[in-house]
């Protein structure tokens, strides 16, 4: 596989830096600062110390015996749900906030969908004593009230966004508007492998610890390389985080699971790769849900974290080149998988993560039973309790 991105952030025909001129020089400054920091052993040491002692890394690799028996292959769960704050998002936030400090930025902004990235940003900001503003679609502040309270508890200001569809994409528009206005002192902490260069590559590198650890853990377990790796994809940070260490191991199948919402044919879904239309939004060229006039279409998923009409440009590249395959799972299948994992393993996954679990029976059909499948258990489900109570009548 060729190394991506190129110097200007292109992943083949995807990625780039499609932003208003005001943000081009700050993104260039950010790119240089990031490259310098990531090459600096002192920065890496501070980041890794926090990952170990604050986040609790390495996260465990757990062989899910009962789930394995049920789906008919050997299933290994990478337990990102056990991280501090309950998801993989914190890995990235620790790195970006350290970078913000190093760049002398005094104010942090972020967008959030499910609230996990918002919580992780608020957490890192509390740790480093930085003021934090989180933009969140008004609809998501309702769906994810628990996370709104957590962010406020840690001193972050949560600003509900009412414009557009009042979900993640609109929160990102509003964060970009804030950044373009306050670009001198403000650091924009993006939560996915999405947005203008250098965000997709920076977030990939800050999440790559997931795959690096899993590779070593599978080796130690005597498995060696897995046959397949499965992760859910909204913007795609947990998937890229676990895929990256295996990208050149071409025998390892990489499978991303998008949200099919109420079904692809219903039009109410968040499967931008399945939609197969290339477009430009939020600084990147990628697969984008849009109408025939180039207007962005609202996404739908029961999980707020997958409810995004685009996908990170490296996933678009992996799809185009065939390095990874992308499949879709409906809201109902995700709900069923949430119950399945809860009852079989005593692990309540986030609704986002449940999409990866739900895909396993289909994946086993082509790997066969004698396969080791690594699943990124990207987050825990506590935040979804209200949705689960409503949908499952608990």
């Amino acid at each position, binding site marked *: 596989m060729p190394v991506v991105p190129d110097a*200007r952030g292109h992943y083949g025909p995807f990625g*780039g*830096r*499609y*932003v*208003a*001129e*005001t*943000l*081009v*020089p*700050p993104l260039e400054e950010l790119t240089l600062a990031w490259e310098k920091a990531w090459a600096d052993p002192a920065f890496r040491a501070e980041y890794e110390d926090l990952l170990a002692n604050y986040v609790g890394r390495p996260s465990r690799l757990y062989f899910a015996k009962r789930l394995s028996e049920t789906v008919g292959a050997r299933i290994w769960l990478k337990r990102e749900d056990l991280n501090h704050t309950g998801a993989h998002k914190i890995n990235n936030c620790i790195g970006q906030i350290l970078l913000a400090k190093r760049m002398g930025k005094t104010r942090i902004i972020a967008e959030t969908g499910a609230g996990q990235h918002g919580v992780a940003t608020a957490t890192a900001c509390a740790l480093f004593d930085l003021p934090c503003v989180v933009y969140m679609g008004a609809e998501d502040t309702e769906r994810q009230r628990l996370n709104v309270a957590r962010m406020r508890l840690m001193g972050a200001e949560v600003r509900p966004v009412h*414009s*557009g569809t009042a979900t993640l*994409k*609109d929160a990102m*528009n509003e964060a*970009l*508007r804030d950044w*373009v*206005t*306050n*670009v*001198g002192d403000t650091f924009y902490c993006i939560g996915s492998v999405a947005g203008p260069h250098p965000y997709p590559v920076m977030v990939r590198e800050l999440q790559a610890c997931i795959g690096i650890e899993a590779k070593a853990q599978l080796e130690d377990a005597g498995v060696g390389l897995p046959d397949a790796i499965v992760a859910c994809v909204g913007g795609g940070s947990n998937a890229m985080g676990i895929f990256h260490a295996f990208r050149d191991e071409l025998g390892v199948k990489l499978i991303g699971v998008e949200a099919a919402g109420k079904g692809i044919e219903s039009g109410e879904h968040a499967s931008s790769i399945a939609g197969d239309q*290339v*477009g*430009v*939004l*939020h*600084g990147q060229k990628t697969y*984008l849900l*849009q109408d*025939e*006039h*180039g*207007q*962005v279409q609202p996404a739908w998923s029961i999980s707020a974290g997958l409810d995004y009409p685009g996908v990170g440009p490296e996933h678009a590249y992996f799809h185009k080149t065939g390095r990874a395959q992308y499949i879709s799972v409906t809201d109902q299948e995700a709900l069923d998988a949430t119950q399945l994992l809860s009852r079989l393993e005593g692990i309540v996954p986030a609704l986002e993560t449940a999409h990866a679990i739900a895909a396993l029976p289909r994946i086993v059909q082509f790997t066969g039973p004698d396969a080791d499948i690594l699943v990124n258990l990207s987050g825990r489900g506590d935040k979804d309790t209200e949705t689960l109570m409503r949908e499952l009548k608990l």
Partner: protein
Amino acid sequence: MNRLDEIFASEATALVTYLCAGDPSVDESLPLFQALADAGADVLEIGVPFSDPGADGPAIQRSAERALAAGATLEKVLEMTGKIQGDSAKVLFGYLNPFLSYGYERLAARCVEVGIHGLLVVDCPPEEEPELRAALDAHNIHPILLIAPTTPDDRIAALGPSAGGFAYYVSMTGVTGAAFQGGQALVDRIARVRKLAGLPVAVGFGIATPEDAASVASGADGVVVGSALVRIVEANGAEAAAELSKLTSALKAAI
């Protein structure tokens, strides 16, 4: 010769006006653009509504939402533009995705047919989309260059030769429609941008009143007014022509 070059070759400061096309509807926005042209706007910026206008403040966001809700599309906006009478130059102004979806060659050819002289794409820096630039060049449509307060001198100098018509200088870091911050520093900066880019400079973002316009007109080759006009459409809908005409005349007199 491209009409934009004729306008900016003149000694007078050009008045550049923006409206989002299709608000309150495509048919009803034609007389509104006509009112701007008849009242003396030298350049009409024809805003193409987009679902996610990330560089715009609330006034233009709402205008775009109204236009899309009323069924505006890029093709309908182009048709409407072709019906505007008079000798104002016209710049199509929007976000990349509707243009990408329409097709660059098709777009450039249609621009010629409907009398559009320049294209300004908010979220497409000159480094991206060489195919768009090639299509515009082939049809003598000027790619309009945006310069921001954050743009370093060497970048302005490097980008200038690739653009045409005029450079649009964004007066402040922020979104459209914020409060104007003029002053001598801005006038000095405009002069510097003109020299570095080798292009006439129109200044915009936040200019709302004849007083704002007058304060920068002496130093600039053009003055851009957008959100203030869009707010008139928001308040008056299809009946906005008279008020638009009044503000445009006052702006024209002030520069």
